[in-house]
């Protein structure tokens, strides 16, 4: 495939080829055409972010904002007014329609890969040595915050059991995540895990936790770099969705990580663990998929479970504050409103510091910092080197948490 001479001169800044993603025993096999379907969709997402969105932003400042001023005699007062102005403009509608449709195509592409090979994947998970590190609990039911809509348009979300011993939701998530991130999370899509390890090493050199609790682990992408970074630690990774945990335990075993136990539990109800039994309680991109009432209970559980001298960290999307332009806030709401991430916009409004203090953490020991994914793998560029901002998918996040006195 020849690209034109002119474009050869610029450094290639697009997604890597799908076939360079990290392999493990549970990763669904892809045919040539299935891999290329992922490549097309990753390229399309990148095109929308790099080539279309800048035009939307220019049109906002050049046309929509002046029109809003003419109609209202003032600037927009909040992100909702900005969004309503955007929704009147054909470019924003086109970008949004393409973006939503790309996500739907990605889900179909992923499930088309996974479902025909599901019997083999189920067998592989069940016979994996990882199943020894799996503790499922049939009494745990998906909470209301997961069942109202299917998160990021995944039919069946995380928790649906299509067949006994199902891993299909996790296999679809793992296989197609590349499409949404364009490789910015690294070849094992674990850039968040590497990012938090790097952060912890900087704020606590020599930190040697004995027990670590990971909340809302999903299929364990991000907890594995933590487990590898602290090989002496025993890690407990909890999630409500059995398909994610089955897949995650087998995936971890296949990648040679044996110090993580995958436990089916609701992060709002962790009575099974003893008070002060974890040196580090953490979550990565989990809180935005919960609810305010769940969040309060999660903070309270974290306070109860963290050991004296330990710490709590949560990696999340940036907070909407006065310093963040309303245009950016409005675009960051896109996933909440149109990609079935209903709590995402609410979480941006919540002052996590206040919740931490209300849960019993000391205000003077709170942690906040920026953190970005560190992408591992040749050809995978990480957030620090990505200059295309699409206000939501770029893995540049914040860490909020607290240290607990010894």
């Amino acid at each position: 495939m020849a690209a034109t001479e002119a474009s050869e001169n610029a450094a290639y800044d697009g997604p890597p080829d799908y076939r360079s993603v990290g392999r493990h025993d549970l990763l669904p096999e892809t045919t040539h055409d299935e891999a290329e379907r992922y490549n097309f969709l990753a390229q399309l997402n990148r095109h929308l972010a790099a080539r279309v969105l800048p035009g939307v932003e220019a049109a906002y400042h050049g046309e929509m904002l002046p029109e809003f001023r003419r109609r209202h005699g003032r600037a927009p007062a909040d992100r909702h007014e900005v969004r309503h102005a955007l929704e009147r403009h054909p470019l924003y509608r086109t970008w949004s329609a393409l973006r939503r449709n790309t996500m739907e195509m990605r889900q179909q592409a992923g499930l088309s890969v996974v479902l025909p090979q599901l019997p083999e994947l189920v067998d592989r998970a069940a016979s994996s040595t990882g199943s020894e590190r799996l503790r499922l609990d049939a009494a745990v039911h998906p909470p209301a915050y997961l069942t109202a809509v299917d998160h990021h348009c995944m039919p069946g979300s995380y928790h649906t059991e299509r067949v006994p011993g199902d891993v299909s939701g996790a296999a679809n998530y793992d296989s197609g995540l590349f499409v949404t991130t364009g490789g910015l999370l690294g070849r094992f899509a674990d850039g968040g895990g590497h990012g938090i390890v790097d952060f912890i090493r900087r704020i606590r050199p020599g930190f040697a936790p004995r027990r670590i609790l990971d909340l809302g682990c999903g299929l364990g992408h991000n907890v594995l770099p933590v487990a590898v970074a602290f090989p002496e630690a025993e890690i407990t990774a909890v999630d409500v969705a059995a398909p994610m945990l089955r897949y995650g335990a087998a995936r971890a075993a296949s990648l040679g990580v044996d110090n993580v136990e995958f436990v089916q539990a609701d992060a709002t109800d962790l009575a099974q663990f003893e008070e002060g039994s974890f040196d580090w309680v953490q979550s990565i991109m989990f809180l935005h998929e919960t609810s305010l009432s769940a969040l309060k209970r999660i903070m309270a559980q974290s306070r109860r479970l963290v050991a004296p001298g330990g710490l709590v960290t949560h990696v999340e999307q940036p907070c909407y504050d006065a310093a963040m332009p309303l245009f950016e806030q409005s675009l960051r709401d896109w996933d909440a409103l149109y990609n079935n991430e209903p709590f995402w916009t609410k979480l941006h409004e919540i002052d996590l510091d206040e919740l931490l203090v209300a849960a019993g953490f000391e205000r003077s020991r709170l942690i906040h910092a920026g953190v970005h994914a560190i992408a591992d793998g040749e050809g995978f560029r990480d957030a620090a080197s990505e200059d295309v901002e699409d206000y939501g998918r770029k893995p540049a996040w914040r860490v909020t948490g607290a240290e607990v006195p010894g």
Partner: protein
Amino acid sequence: MSEDQSPVGGAGAGAGGADAAPLDVMRLAGAKARGKRPYFFEDPDVERVLAITMALAGELAVLRARLDTMEELLEKRGTMTRADIDAFVPAPAHAERRGRWYQEYLARILRIVQQDAEACGADEPTSEEAGQRLGPA
């Protein structure tokens, strides 16, 4: 047709053991996610056509990539099987070339979007208006 393009959902597409009813893969893969779908255009029919068009664009890209793979295999080895195509992994330089091709392809497919963006805020006459000014009145 390679196997992955054959109709699926029949024997062999089941899961959960030999006794379980086979999954209807095509229906499940294209299933709607729970939650009312947003439509962004005033006329939802326009958005339906856009969705179908982009799906076709995707399938055409896949076909073009398959041709590129076949050309590469034939050039390097002089022969190939379907299994060779599925096992193909582009070398880094080839993957980059293909990535650039995708970028140009999408720029062609979505040309009108680029031009609409360029038109924003531009104070330009139509050709008819320009012609009127060129007289005679």
